[in-house]
């Protein structure tokens, strides 16, 4: 049977696109891009078998195909449903979808600690983004949340199961990238947990990639934990000749210091592919090469604008009009200080919500208020006290 190179026509939220047979609705929507693309918390195009679990990507199929234009009765997981020719899909144009998705987000959040300010993933967390887009201001959940102790799995990775949304991505990494699988899921239901066979057994050249696929702060880099907030670091693309992996990485620097090394990410928060091969990196590149001299710097990393640190989710956020004592329900706390007096960063005259991108040191130094790329080539690695930079400020290169 010769494969006719026929393309399938699919209409998503009234936008029509032609895609090769075998494309999932989600990937077709990604080709269109923008708001039409459903959020995906568990699907990871580079991990075989992933997806279908979190249910954030549910969409309504208003017409199955030209041949069989009946609508599908249930919402379907767009990441695991392939398009048919003539399919009509509704994502943000469907109230059912919005309703179900809000429900899913609520479910994901009921057992999630809502303490982003102390979570290492804050700023690059997909659940945080999802919460901004679909979450409610308050919770209807009035019970204690599921908690676990933090656990170091191996010398490089820390698991904080309390934050896990059980997307299974890391288990697929364990399955597909590392050779002796020791990482999986124990128990079931809301008492299920990620675990390694023997607590500290994750030692494998590629295990560090689990950190990058984890959409939340459940798996974090022990060599980076709480060294810095991610939005204070400067991401740059860099590479080295690595015998084990592609050696193409993003360095997250502060001044001359390489704080963290990660894979490079595509606009969907997934690892970038090179010639069709996902650019996973080895643990040597990730954890051992922490000097700028180990790397050839390519230039600034473009941060996808969907993340909290990239986009400005605070735009249009309402400022409360109440005064402190009203907010505090009439109470007068004994210790109350004006945060603006003790921190440079929080200055009332700087309207963070109106900045087009992440705040930088310059924002607060009052030097340059318009947004520009944080870093310029050539300055990386050189003593950074030239004009316009300030090596004592964490936010300048």
């Amino acid at each position: 049977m010769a494969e006719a190179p026929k393309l399938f026509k699919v209409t998503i939220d009234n936008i029509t696109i032609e895609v090769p047979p075998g494309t999932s609705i989600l990937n077709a929507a990604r080709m269109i891009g923008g708001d039409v693309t459903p959020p995906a918390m568990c699907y990871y195009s580079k991990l075989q078998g992933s997806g279908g679990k979190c249910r954030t990507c549910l969409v309504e199929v208003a017409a199955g195909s030209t041949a069989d234009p009946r609508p599908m009765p249930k919402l379907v997981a767009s990441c695991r449903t392939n398009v048919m020719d003539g399919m009509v899909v509704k994502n943000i144009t469907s109230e059912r979808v919005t309703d179900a998705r809000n429900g899913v987000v609520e479910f994901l959040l009921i057992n999630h600690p809502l303490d982003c300010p102390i979570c290492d993933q804050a700023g690059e967390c997909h659940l945080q983004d999802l919460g901004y887009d679909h979450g409610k201001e308050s919770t209807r959940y009035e019970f204690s949340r599921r908690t676990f102790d933090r656990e170091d799995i191996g010398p490089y990775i820390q698991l904080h199961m309390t934050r896990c949304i059980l997307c299974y991505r890391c288990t697929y990494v364990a399955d597909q990238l590392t050779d002796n699988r020791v990482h999986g899921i124990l128990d079931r239901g809301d008492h299920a947990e990620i675990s390694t066979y023997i607590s500290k057994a994750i030692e494998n050249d590629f295990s560090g990639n689990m950190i990058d696929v984890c959409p939340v702060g459940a798996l974090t880099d022990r060599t980076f934990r709480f060294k810095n907030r991610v939005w204070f670091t400067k991401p740059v693309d860099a590479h080295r000749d690595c015998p084990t992996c592609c050696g193409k990485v993003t360095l997250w620097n502060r001044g001359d210091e390489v704080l963290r090394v990660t894979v490079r990410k595509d606009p969907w928060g997934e690892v970038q592919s090179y010639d069709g091969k996902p650019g996973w990196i080895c643990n040597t590149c990730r954890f051992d090469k922490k000097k700028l001299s180990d790397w050839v710097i390519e230039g600034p990393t473009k941060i996808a604008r969907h993340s909290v640190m990239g986009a400005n989710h605070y735009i249009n956020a309402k400022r409360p009009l109440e005064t402190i004592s009203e907010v505090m329900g009439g109470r007068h706390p004994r210790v109350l200080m004006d945060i603006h007096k003790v921190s440079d960063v929080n200055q009332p005259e700087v309207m963070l919500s109106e900045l087009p991108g992440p705040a930088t040191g310059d924002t607060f130094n009052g030097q340059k208020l318009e947004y520009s790329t944080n870093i310029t080539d050539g300055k990386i690695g050189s003593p950074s006290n030239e004009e316009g930079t300030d090596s004592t400020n964490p936010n300048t290169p």
Partner: protein
Amino acid sequence: MGRKLLLDKAHIENIRLYDVYRREGGYRSVEKALKSMSPDQVTEEVKKSGLRGRGGAGFPTGMKWSFLAKPEGVPRYLVVNADESEPGTFKDRYLMEFIPHLLIEGMITSSYALGSSRSYIYIRGEYAWIVDILEQAIAEAKNNGWLGKNILGSGFDCEIYVHPGAGAYICGEETALLESLEGKRGNPRIKPPFPAVKGLWDCPTVVNNVETIAAVVPIVNEGGEEYAKIGIGKSTGTKLISSCGNIKKPGVYEIDMTISVEEFIYSDEYCGGIPKGKRLKACIPGGSSVPILPANLLLKTAKGETRMMTYESLADGGFATGSMMGSGGFIVLDETQCVVRHTYTLARFYRHESCGQCSPCREGTGWMEKILLNIENGKGKMTDVDLLWDIQRKIEGNTICPLGDAAAWPVAAAIRHFRDEFEWHILNPEECLRRNYGLANYGSVPAKV
């Protein structure tokens, strides 16, 4: 007396043994099929019989069989679902325990129809002693030439293996069952592909309930058309009902689907009525997952017709005023039973059994359980009832497998039909607590009739 096709011989002494079973006419269907019928003809008879899956969904078995993909050079499998873990359901257990050869016979005939040379029984782990019974039956069948190579000289080979599960309800869901059978964690697969195309070890597979496969024996023996004459409409043949709860005679009954629910509950041939002169309050007619019905809607449909023990009649009125035949686990509640506590018990079960793959089921089941426990303990709020409704609504239909729905439906139905009882709990917290410690009789709550 209704007709019995499966359990008519179950009480014969030593029917568990091959010699007795054979003497009573056992294995005739294998002879008939292998000697005088083609596999497709067997499938055709099953289609004509109108047999519907007895595992819960009631999908027409003949149609399921004809969907089985048959690519060249790829093995096909028959897997019998004996996981039976639905609360209130214990019919397969009875069948396997008392007349195991009926299942083995049905499996050989069905395997012939489907072209499966290796068939499996995936049995609930807690049924450990039945594993031995089945293994013995298989060994006997093999010794007598009904299993193995070239059965009856027909050129058809067949082996049957028994695989015990490890105690998870979810492994009764057909794709979770296949995962478990492959030695993996029993998480339901995302469908499509369906097992008929990609099932066990990625090969085309049919998964059927124990009772479904056992019913193939009388169908082949007597012909599909004869079988279809029993019952009403699309509910053909006989059905095993395991009844329990507040009835005089709990147990497994084989009914031909022509009797009314009222007759089933009150006649001495079946449940024998409600003990101690109590009144009927409600009933779950098809296993814990299906909607509960208050007595008035149980005995008569919303249209005022008599409700019959058939797939169609039990489902009459949809979920608004009807329920489902489900797996045939018939749970009866009398006027002293508390629907809130009952719903809480079910919610606890589903929370415990959710595999945890998809967020709505994983988180929603736990949330519902906690709210229901609060209400049951007199700590509920009026808004909790609407919240429960909203949670179940957001689980239903949004999950990978039907366990999410199965967790949502009982809660939805309980609120739909017994909202006043939830509200009573919320308004009478002390009374609830006292009752929980066994100090008060709950009989003061108005029964539903």
